[in-house]
């Protein structure tokens, strides 16, 4: 029998109240084992306080060739940034 364990993507929350961040992947037969393995592979030095595992096959990603149509619309909307507005110094901090 030839069965490769499925691939899981691993997300870890660091110590400081941050969001979970992708750190890598690993193989495991199921989610429970994926968490145990992630503990050993990715948190040997206290790198995290919480682990998420997601089967890699369940992730849908944007495609790199869509980069233009996906992100260009936001490039022209400079008025979404505070630096677009000139507030006189006299007004004080804003």
């Amino acid at each position, binding site marked *: *029998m*030839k*069965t*490769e*364990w499925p*691939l899981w993507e691993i997300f870890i929350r660091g110590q400081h109240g941050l969001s979970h961040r992708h750190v*890598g*992947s*690993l*193989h495991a*037969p*199921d989610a429970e*084992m994926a968490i145990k393995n992630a503990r*050993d*592979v990715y948190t*040997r*030095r206290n790198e995290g306080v919480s682990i998420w595992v997601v089967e890699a096959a369940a992730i849908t*990603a944007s*495609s*790199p060739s869509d980069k233009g149509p996906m992100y260009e619309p936001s490039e022209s909307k400079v008025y979404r940034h505070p630096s677009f507005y000139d507030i006189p110094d006299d007004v004080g901090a804003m």
Partner: protein
Amino acid sequence: MYAQMVKSTGTGLKSADEMSAEERAFQARIDAGEKIEPKDWMPEGYRKTLIRQIGQHAHSEIVGQLPEGNWITRAPTLERKAILLAKVQDEAGHGLYLYCAAETLGVSRDEMTEMLLDGRMKYSSIFNYPTLTWADMGAVGWLVDGAAIMNQVPLQRTSFGPYSRAMIRVCKEESFHQRQGFDIMMKMAQGTPQQKAMAQDALNRFWYPALMMFGPSDKDSVHSAQSMAWKIKMNTNDELRQKFVDQTVPQAEYLGLTVPDENLTWNEEKGGYDFSEPDWEEFFEVIKGNGPCNTDRLAARNKAWDDGAWVREGMMAHAEKKRARKMAAE
């Protein structure tokens, strides 16, 4: 290095005119310092060369556990045992980070494992040398991890995103490896005359194999030129070897040990040491499979893979059964 003599796939370095529009755009991204991610377009040669290189690197981390694992049960103190165990466990982790980086390029973990086990893929020549005494644990950490660091630090800037990120993790963990090795060497070198002699003997046996880790001179190699243009190789083998010697010789002096090279002299003009080349014939023999431990190493990996088959299969069957039961209950 951990990946020695990786041949690039392709016709060698192309000029901008010879490149297709896609290749030109790809090279421009690399030249601009952008990272290439798995789903981005890449030349087939880039993909294949990286699979070979990252795979070889991963295999080296995994096989590299064997010479040190050899001493875990015989470490002189409980503290040394805990340290060595942690170090060897890190190496397993390094192998795993690298395997997953390679997998993003479309090769499966099982395929890579099988290629290691049947000899189609290589691992670093250094791990085909035996670890005969406890002092070898010092020499391996100091010299072998030291040489690995020399290569891995620049690779943090490599163009392929997953490889670069794996290298950043590895480098963070690696400096403890070299330090614990040097710490063992210090203890031995400052110990009884017999202990100091063991330390010297370990240095004698590991010096040239450590120099071989960087691979033969590749300043004229077309493969290296291509890999350097792609930023999957950051320095020539000779540059890294020189840097390693310059860094290590003063450390040996600090230990009061002698580097086994009569020709070792400081060259004021180049600001580095002149030193003897390792025996490259021996290197090619080791690469071909005729080193002192090649057979043992591969046998150990094959045994682990074969003996573990029922566990891998059993756990998968169990996971499937659980899933089916859960589905039925819903």
